[in-house]
């Protein structure tokens, strides 16, 4: 991949991240994730050649570049939101991720964690021989 291609992917897919003012307190109110996208854009300006050469000189951008290249191929690889902004509720991401695992009966305890139920209705060891149609059974309310 050339540095020009990388710049184009950042402009196409990451404009939302580059437009956030990280000097504003409300946009970095939470600590769990450090966005490197802004710094990357600045150092990429004027860079020529391929990304391998760029990363040889800027190894601290390796993770961010991987994310840009991954998102260019997989549209759902990233949560496109400011995860350290004060409006970010971790519970929303938790619910989405847990839903992929088949979690049910969400019982949020705060905006940071939730009680869930996994594999309810799944067969026990001695029921595996007759275990059709158990996945995600309909729950009683």
């Amino acid at each position: 991949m050339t540095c020009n291609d990388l710049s184009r992917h950042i402009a196409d897919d990451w404009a939302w991240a580059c437009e956030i003012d990280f000097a504003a307190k409300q946009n970095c109110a939470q600590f769990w994730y450090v966005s490197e996208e802004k710094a990357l854009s600045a150092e990429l300006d004027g860079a020529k050649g391929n990304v391998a050469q760029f990363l040889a000189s800027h190894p601290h951008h390796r993770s961010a570049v991987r994310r840009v290249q991954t998102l260019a191929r997989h549209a759902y690889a990233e949560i496109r939101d400011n995860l350290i902004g004060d409006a970010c509720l971790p519970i929303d991401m938790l619910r989405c991720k847990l839903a992929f695992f088949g979690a049910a009966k969400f019982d949020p305890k705060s905006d940071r964690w939730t009680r869930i139920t996994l594999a309810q209705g799944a067969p026990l060891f001695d029921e595996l021989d007759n275990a059709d149609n158990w996945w995600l059974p309909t729950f009683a309310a």
Partner: protein
Amino acid sequence: MIRSHNEIATMATKAARGAGAPLGHAEDFGPVVAYLAAHDAEGLSCLQAALGANIRQLDQQNTGNGMVMNAAQAVIAAPIAIDMVKAGANTVQLRDIDAPALVSAYCRLAGGVTCKIEDDYCTIWEFLAALAAKTYVPATEESRLAGAGAGLTDND
């Protein structure tokens, strides 16, 4: 204790980060250590050499169709060398490499990259765990009151 591939890769990733490696290099390091554990457990002895010293800026010079890296640290140099080869470089030379077995594992895992070790003077779970612990944020009264899992026991 039997540990899964995923546990080893995750611990090694955090250890590299704790040792000061850039995040992307730490992400590359974890799966390589898991690969070593599965395929070349003796090679794991070089991890202390790989992560025991301060992580330094890469000392590199471009050559005609390749690159030379001096006093190379595998955790930094190996992913860059593989990038360069995949991007068309003919030869990348890593001089005075701290952990040759690790470089070899990086190359095998990447595929399509030939690794030739000319000198081997490669001079760990607790070691990795101690470095990984550097990435953890200590708990505070505030975090206990407001963090994830706070406020209730799990047995209500």
